[in-house]
């Protein structure tokens, strides 16, 4: 079963709508023990990195998430803040994050661009992760990740200069844009992710 982590502040219901629309069975998970048995794990995210880390900590979900994703290599998709918390640190509220990927999350310079970035931006995929899509995707973000390992960079977009639009490392995929709200381009990427063979 595809499991979507629901920590009551994210937009898990929207992601569930999109996954079901694509014809897959999925369920929302709000308790750590219900994550076991996942064929795919999706971590949606809106709001701040700190609020997200706090909610996930409160759920005590990190040990099981680490085991499933990092040891057992279950396909994982992080969305928006679900991308940002994979890095070591976010500037937002000076928040320590998971550190699955090396690098930091920094704020857009609002003397250069309006913050938050809100809208459709053209995404350029810089490597083939096996589940690429193409086109314009919907972003809502004030912060963006700076991966230290160039090989983790999956896609970029331009907002006052190129920024990280998506990252990928093995079974870990994450998009700064909202695949569930990016029309057919987003649904296509989501479908590609879900169609990957289970671990």
């Amino acid at each position, binding site marked *: 079963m595809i499991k979507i982590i629901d920590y009551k*502040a994210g937009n898990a*219901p929207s992601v569930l709508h999109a996954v079901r*629309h694509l014809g897959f069975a999925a369920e929302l998970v709000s308790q750590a023990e219900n994550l076991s048995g996942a064929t795919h794990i999706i971590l949606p995210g*809106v709001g701040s990195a700190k609020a997200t880390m706090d909610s996930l900590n409160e759920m005590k979900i990190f040990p099981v998430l680490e085991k499933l994703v990092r040891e057992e290599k279950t396909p994982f998709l992080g969305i928006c803040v679900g991308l940002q918390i994979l890095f070591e640190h976010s500037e937002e509220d000076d928040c320590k994050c998971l550190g699955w990927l090396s690098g930091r999350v920094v704020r857009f310079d609002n003397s250069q661009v309006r913050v*938050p970035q809100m*809208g459709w931006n053209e995404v350029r995929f810089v490597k083939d992760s096996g589940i690429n899509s193409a086109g314009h995707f919907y972003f*809502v973000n*004030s912060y963006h990740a700076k991966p230290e390992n160039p090989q983790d960079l999956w896609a970029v977009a331009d907002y006052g200069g190129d920024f990280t639009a998506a990252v990928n490392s093995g079974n870990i995929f994450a998009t700064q844009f909202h695949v569930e709200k*990016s029309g057919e381009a987003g649904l296509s990427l989501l479908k590609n992710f879900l169609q990957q063979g289970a671990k």
Partner: protein
Amino acid sequence: MLTKRLIACFDIVDGRVTKAIQFQDNIDVAAADVLAGEMYNAQIDELIFYDIHASSEKRLIDIETVKKVAARVFVPFTVGGGIKDLNGMYEALKAGAEKISVDSMAVRTPEIIREGAKAFGSQCVVLSTQVKRDPAFPSGYQVYIDGARTATGLDAIEWLKRCEDLGAGEICLNSIDCDGTLQGYDLPLMKKAEAAVRVPLIASGGAGEPSHLSDLFTQTQAQAAIISSMLYSPRLQKNYTPKELKQFLSDKGVSVRPFV
């Protein structure tokens, strides 16, 4: 590059889209979920849905209709009407909305903006406001609430700045003077707003033909435009598809999400 957004706006009564002129004389157009599905298929960039009677009837937004629309629409979806606290916001988000629009309630209880932004993130809180030209105010515009019926005594631009400080992630500015006139957006209003705040701005009220959109996007920094009549009003002789509007804008050098 970030593209300019076209947002279809629905005024909802009993689960159906209606169309008014200057907040009066609503006529029935279509079932909300059906029209929303059509707009999604036509590649609209975003949807906003106002339950226009929820506040005056002192009830929460029509959650069933929010759910039905959310199940058919995979672009951002904002809802407003009758949401007066965090609980109401959470109910609407749980039903599948991305963003909550606050308007009259924000004037009565500005803290709802701060609380909403703290609980769900700024990106979730859209401040919508109805403003009307009034030379007695420093900016030349006054804020109105309750479907543009009640003057608030607030200067429009001061109000926008305050809402930005409170944490609104986006501001939708509706010109009461232009609403329903089909004569174009209030460009001077948008220019004043863009100089005063840094959050993304949405222009609302007055669009009647494609050139109004290109005027807005080439003469102001507005990032998005609300359109409704042009898309579906039976009162207009000609309705436009998002595809036609995007083609027109693209030809005028405005960057839009291409129709594919």
